[in-house]
């Protein structure tokens, strides 16, 4: 699904250079469940942003499904993201002035789905995450766990093939955390792909593969023992 080739991303601030991410080669295969771990500031979010087509690397290419992501026009890149990628954020990033239903409708609207279909799909997605009776509530009227479930419904709205998640369980209570992780398990079991940044060792252990970053460098890539079938990755 992904092939990263000679990627560097450097931030320059007041004559100081920070190498946020650097990798000579990295592959992520279709159906893999990848956990990205490492200390704070090690470049995990930077990597995720580049995979999502939101941050262009300074050098190298990001191949996504055989296309060089950053050689596409911004519109084409946005379309790939809209149609194939779902994001999950640590702070959920729900739009505060929209109801749960409307929040789930946003990606459908962006994808040009008709109004009535938007509503039908959003209602059924919210029912799937157990919030069928809270569709008219604003995020501020929902608990943290409920907010993340609305965010998950929104992530799944356009039926993505890939989920990019940045610390999806960081702000959650154990029950909600489990709900998110089991939904991820189900997602992967359908043959789809997840790249998840996490500080949570338990969550990382459920992935098929762990990528460890340190100071922007890929230090190790190991398969989890409990999962089979994942491709071995080349460490940089």
């Amino acid at each position, binding site marked *: 699904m992904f092939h990263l080739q000679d990627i560097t991303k450097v931030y320059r601030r007041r004559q100081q250079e920070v190498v946020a991410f650097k990798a000579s080669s990295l592959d992520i295969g279709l159906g893999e469940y990848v956990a990205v771990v490492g200390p704070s500031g090690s470049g995990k*979010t930077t990597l*995720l*942003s580049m995979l*999502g087509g*939101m*941050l262009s690397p300074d050098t190298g290419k990001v191949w996504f499904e055989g296309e060089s992501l950053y050689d596409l026009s*911004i*519109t084409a890149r*946005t*379309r790939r*993201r*809209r*149609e194939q990628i779902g*994001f999950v*954020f*640590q*702070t959920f*990033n729900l*739009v*505060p*002035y*929209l109801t749960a239903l*409307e929040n789930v*409708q*946003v*990606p*459908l*609207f*962006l*994808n040009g789905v008709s*109004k009535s279909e*938007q509503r039908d799909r959003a209602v059924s997605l919210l029912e799937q995450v157990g919030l069928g009776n809270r569709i008219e509530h604003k995020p501020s009227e929902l608990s943290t766990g409920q907010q993340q479930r609305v965010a998950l419904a*929104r992530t799944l709205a*356009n039926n993505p093939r890939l989920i990019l998640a*940045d610390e999806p369980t960081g702000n959650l209570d154990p029950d909600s955390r489990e709900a998110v992780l089991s939904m991820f398990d189900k997602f992967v079991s359908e043959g789809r792909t997840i790249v998840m940044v996490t500080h949570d060792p338990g969550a990382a252990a459920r992935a098929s593969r762990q990528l460890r970053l340190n100071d922007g460098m890929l230090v190790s890539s190991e398969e989890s023992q409990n999962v089979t079938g994942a491709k071995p990755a080349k460490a940089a």
Partner: protein
Amino acid sequence: MNLKTLVWRELAERPSAMLTSTLMILLGVTALVAIRHVTVFSEREVGQQLQSLGANVLVLPKEATLQDYYSADLTERTLPESHVASILLENLPGVERLSPKLCVSAKVADRDVTLTGILPQSEFQAKAVWQSVSLFSNKHEGCKKAACGPKTYDAAPETLASERTIDQLKGNEAVIGADVAEFSALKPGQSIKMFGEKLQVLAVLPRTGTVDDSRVFAHLHTVQRLTNAGEVVNAIEVMGCCEDAAGGLVPKLAELLPDAKVVTISQVVSTQVGINRLMSQMSLFVLAILVIVGGASVASTISSNVRERRREVGTLMALGATPSLVTRMFLLKAWTLGIVGAVGGSVLGLIVAMVLGSQWAGVAVTPLPGLIALSIGVALVITTLAALWPARSAAKLDPCCCFQEI
């Protein structure tokens, strides 16, 4: 869900954020619409005055001002009535009618009115025959009027309101203005008592909205006799046959009557024309203020909104919003506040113009759809231009900011 709902939900959630710049646009459009409306109607009024007075030239006493003539306050200063005959005898080219007037203050039913003495046109005919002049037959060079043939002198007395002259009026008859008729409850055929003498009401004039509404018109010689004024008048209106006549008449009349003041109507309305010009310039000034203050306010509102909504913009981009959609989203916010401000301002400006127009400028204002549409258009162009830069900058935001915690 569409772009409109997205924008509308945000504005409905916290309308106060957009209030200041909406107010700026609103006030600017209010001022623009109000001033333009009053100006347009004031200009129309001047045009109507010019038209109703025709190609008039006024002969006034030397010391009299035009303002005196307009407010019918000419009682102090007089001209000898013999000037009328002088003008008649001179048979100046382009003169079509003469109307000498003598105005005195009087009371009818305890209200102030102006008793105005006029000479019916039929008497000029008599005088002309008696003096053996061919009456008003001298065409000026290049006259556009088709025929200046003999007249019949049988027009209804009500034509006094529009023509400013009357064909027939006997010594014991009066014609009253609409206001006088209203407060004295007099009808044609009844009699009105002026300076102890009963005059029969010949007709009530249609309302003109001018000082004529509170006049009582009577025969010039009756007014002279009742007030012991002697053979004098306050003003002589000289009607030219067409616009071109007026200019040529002024120097000739001035030469003929060196003790009088000869003015044209365009001089009479010159003050109003000056005020109108001032108001026109003022509306340009208001437009400039609207552009600068309104534009700056919209630009700052939208750019602070972009800053405030950075994370949402990033999230929308992560969900697949294109940069052009983000730009359109912020432009739509600007348009919403622009439309609210412009429409509100138009309504308010119209109300202001209707109230103040009649109070200050004495003109009746009715809505001018074209002007309102233009004002709204101008306001929208300003908001668009002002919001364009911040809206574009929103599209260039780093979508990665959606990963940052608040």
